[in-house]
């Protein structure tokens, strides 16, 4: 399993990626976190969410074997935030 987070946008418009390939006992912990993310709800709200007011905010793309989602920074709360921060921390921050 590979989980990849790509951050784009922001004032600087710089692209940055982090990824993790959990194995062994770690994999179960990651699966629980992935299951906690509301993928279906986020998919439905995606167009409006990405077009939310404001400018220069980051945009996060999350890729897993089963899901692919793009989220505005303002939606990065709860399990989404936990997931992104875990991936970032696991890949050097």
């Amino acid at each position, binding site marked *: 399993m590979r989980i990849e987070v*790509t951050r*784009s*946008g*922001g*004032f*600087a*418009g*710089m*692209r940055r990626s982090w990824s993790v390939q959990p194995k062994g006992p770690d994999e179960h912990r990651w699966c629980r976190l992935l299951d906690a993310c509301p993928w279906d709800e986020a998919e439905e709200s995606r167009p409006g969410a*990405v*077009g*939310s*007011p*404001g*400018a*220069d*905010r*980051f*945009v996060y*793309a999350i890729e897993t074997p089963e899901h692919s989602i*793009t989220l505005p920074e*303002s939606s990065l709360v709860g399990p989404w935030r936990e997931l992104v921060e875990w991936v970032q921390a696991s890949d050097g921050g």
Partner: protein
Amino acid sequence: MTHFIVPPHLLRRIAALDEESAGPAPTAARRALREIDDLHRFRVAAAKEPTVRPRSAVAARSPGLLAPSRRISDAQCTESLPGVLVRAEGQDPTGDPAVDEAYEHLGDTYRYFAEVHGRDSMDGLGMPLPATVHYGVRYENAFWDGTRMVFGDGDGVIFNRFTASLSVVAHELVHGMTQFVTQLSYHGQAGAIHESVSDVFGALVEQYSRSQTAGQAHWLIGAELFTPRVSGAAIRSMAAPGTAYDDERLGRDPQPATMDGYLDTEEDSGGVHLNSGIPNHAFYRAAVALGGYVWEHVGRVWYDTVTVADLPSDCSFSLFAEATRTAAERRFGSGSAVTSAVEQAWDEVGVRLPGRSQVLS
């Protein structure tokens, strides 16, 4: 206001001289006369129609009363907005560089729009300028959240604090203005125009505050943001998009300068910070072609385009270019040096204007 050292009657006499005996002076004099003519037309047009177009029925303040109302808050390293108010208009410096830079740079930005365009704040009606500093922990960004400007402290490794740069603070305030006066969506080419407008006026605010001409300005956006560890001059270059930085960790500045390098991507809201290099470079080319103080010619054209032209939410580069040409014609006249420079600039970056299929000579 522009002042010419050589009076017009003398310029006319020099312009009439023979080039073989008088060298380059007659050509320079003819150019100066054209600029005076452009300026005269602009002043006549400006007298006929107000620069500011209030979008509500609320009466604007009279020009003599224009003054900013800055409100700087401190998020205290959280991501809660607005944070604690730490410096309101007229209050003394706090000693916190982020707070005081935000206050001063918002003042510079307000002053530019008030003195050059007669505009009273983002909405043209004197609304307060709210900003929050110390957002998040080592947060490496600045943004406009739809109601306020927000600045991070940077990670200290790649980025300094974002308030350190006047062009960045002005960039964020101009996002607010663009939100108030246009319907531009923040995606694709319309979003790249949104971004470019913020860079254009970010550069102009800086040039105005430093009394710099087109030739003296560095045309960099965010020149103060990188730490010395980064191999780069700034975040973006309007003079040479794609060359602002080339760093081992960050890679190379990805901005295209012309339509040949246009990036078709879904990342970054459809490449808004990437393809903005194209309209940025068009503005730069028109500005340096005319020389002098840019806010007196091309800056006015862009301001009119944003505040007067009814740009659609999905505005394309071509539509925007056409709107700038129309604005240039209205301010300075068709066939004027300013209109020609604007047309030529769009042509040079590969954005086709209706009725223009070949490169101008």
